[in-house]
């Protein structure tokens, strides 16, 4: 999982780590420096990008 997270844009990776750790949404929003109203869509995108990254192959030129 961590290796896949590393391949995401940093904000989404951080969100997923904080969510996994059970951090409250308000705190996550503050940590990510986003408006709280933006968190639902950010969460949806984060999970979508994680699912996509799991399906994608690593870049061939980076040792995979």
């Amino acid at each position: 999982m961590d290796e896949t997270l590393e391949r995401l844009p940093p904000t989404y990776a951080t969100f997923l780590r904080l969510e996994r750790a059970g951090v409250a949404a308000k705190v996550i929003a503050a940590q990510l420096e986003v408006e709280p109203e933006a968190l639902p869509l950010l969460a949806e995108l984060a999970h979508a990008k994680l699912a996509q990254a799991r399906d994608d192959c690593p870049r061939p030129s980076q040792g995979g």
Partner: protein
Amino acid sequence: MMARTCRPGWGHAVAATWPLVGRDEELRLLRSQLADAELTGLVLAGAAGTGKSRLARELLRVAAEAGHPTERIVASRASATIPFGAFAHLLPALEGAPTAATLRAASGALAARGGARRLVLVVDDAHLLDDASVALLHLVMLERTVFTLATTRSGDDPVSDAVVALWKDVDAARLEVQPLSRDETTELAEAGLGGALDAGTARGLWQASRGNPLYLREIVMTARSAGALRVERGLWTIGGEALAPPTSLADVVELRMRGLSAAALEATEVLAVADVLGLAALVDLHGRDAVAELERRGLLQIDDDGRRRPVRLEHPLHGEVVRQRIGRARLTGVARTLADQTDGFGGRRREDALQLAVWRMQVGETTDAGPLVMAAREAYARGSYELASRLLGFARRIAPDDTESALLSAQLDHEHGRHAEAEFIYADVGSLPDGAAVARVAVQRAVNLFFGLGDEDGALAVLREASEAAPERAGELTANQAWLRLNAGWPGDTLELVAGIDDRGDPDVALMVEVTTAWAQTTAGRPAAGLAAAEHARQLRDALAPTRLNRFRDFPELPRALALLTLGDHIAAAEAIGSGRAAALDTHPRFVQAWWSFLAGQLAVRRGQLATAAAAFREGAVIQSRLRQPGLLRRDLAGLALTAALRGDLATARASLAELDATGARPERLHAPLAEQARAWTAWAGGATEEAIALLRTAAADARMRGSHAAESELLHDLARLDVVNGVADRLAALAADGGPLAALRAQHAAAIRQGDGRRLGHAARAFADAGARVMAADAHGRAAVAFDAAGDPRAARLHRHAAQEERDRVDGLSTPALARTHERVALTAREREVVARTVGGLTNREIAEQLGIAKRTVDNLLHRAYGKLGVSDRDAAGRALGLSLPHR
């Protein structure tokens, strides 16, 4: 993620329009939002350059395709003073000051632009709208007559309450558009450039842009125009220069900082010079209010690093732009302030000493070379080679005869390809204070002589002389001699030398001995022992002080990965190579990066990922060319040649071998077997099977003589694949005893070939496939098919033929002897096969006749008969029928 369509070596022009990359999920989300009739719109927020407008325009296109009427307005500071200014082209002329009636009329006019479906309206830079326009949007969104997609910047001037109300009051969702990931940034740059990046350049672009598409594009365009970004060996690469911020971005950055108080602006200048500063130090200099202001504006990044809480500007480009803006006098003043403050705080940490030296250097207020040299060592240990060079240059101006700075300069010269300059420094070193210094100079000089100048005798002589002058350092000097002996291709001698070293109490010597042992054991065909030694080397490395300078501290992971590869544990090898390569990009010297590229290429060849292998070998070749280390360049060129030969790309294979030969005689023969292997397969691909066999025999005998049994095993296996099994299968079985699982597989395969046993060949094929050795698996399946054909078992033959084709399909353009046989439905004679292979390889009939020493008429007749047997009429079809890859044209 969008499919990557880049191919290395596409044109050298930068694309006028860059594609939308890394936004598939955002677009899917936006489409679903648009389709939801309950939603009134969406606010796309984000920093400048993240691609909000581009995303909005893409959604507009999607909406239009779905049958929605669409419009777009762009707010600006100019139109912000005019009621409904941004809507001017969409609304009828409205008389007088805005009133409720005017608003109602405007709302009606806008809604009327829709029809059966809602109007989709993009509002760019909504934060710049005048109040009347915001009120209009508020109304149409409340009434759900228009779906509005508004873009607005995050982190700049506070957004007006009216714009905030757009998403808080009217069921509009808010999406913060984020920068791209590292992979996406590379993908975008490659799409824009029309070609692949080398790994170092990809990393550099990621670090400079931090995934901001606008920054990335501008950086690439500027670097390309300046010639700093160019194509080498088919890869886009930065030629060593730092990526400077493009002037067009200066405006973007200045806009970010518009309206800052004087104290906050000064704080940005301090951070631009310092790069990173403790929070307490920043507050001490500029006050809590200024720091809070910067944090509110999103211009700071504050890490939680225990007590110190390091602070830096939010984006590295901000610092670059500010540094360029403030001028030399101000930069010097800031550096003096920072140096005085660090002195005042005590400055005990290593990074403080480094920073202090840098600032004093910038100010020009230092007369003592000592701190500069210490700072240079710190910079070198951290991988900041350019900074180390600058500090040393300064130190040597102050103290030209300082030996320490001279030696560090020579080391940097060597690592940057300036070998003659390094030798000049070494030869000029005067008397040295003790044995440790004698040994240090001798080792550095010997490495430069061997790897840089190709003088093996000179290198060994230097080490011998030092042993006589400093017998107490014999252990260290012998360990280095062993290292050179290994690289000269004598692993047996290497192990004898290290076995005779008593002095392992010195941690540096112990580490070097273990790394050398690990490498030599694996090269000698004992990869399990090599792996054990590599693990021990890791422990020794981890026990070293973090900044202790030891050129082998970067090394233990390399022989470990090599051992895993030799054992045939490709999964563990892939993990080791992937992480090693990534780590090397951050802090390790470039020659270490090149080693990882080479191992990545070796793994990819094993797995049949030939395009990946070629890219990795090219990267290594680019680095070695820059480092001017032709001995190690030969290694990467051999890899390129082999990969090309396996794909049937004779032109590339021959060109790579020609370039390899042009490097001349070199002492580095550790990878000579790979070069001979490449030569052999290039000959085979050109139809010269007998020549290929002769080359492999000679190479295998040489490898055996030198004790390079791992290479011997590979070369003998290649011979078996060319039907040379007498004496080969038995020798492979003997080598398998210590050679590990993959060596054992090779022996089983060779024994099965000797027996012509289809069942055993099938077992070998499946075992190779399980190990991820796709090239071998394809070959073994192909041979099993032929064996079952000969045994009169067409069903089994068909199964293995199918399996061979499946494996081959996974490997782009693979050509092997067994695959060629697999496709033969009728028996060609050896001569017919030889002639057909040469013609498929691109030779004319006359050239084939000359090569084989037969008449052209005979070649014509042989081809005619072979074509008849195969049921084809030209060489392209013959190639397909025999499963031979045609040369790339």
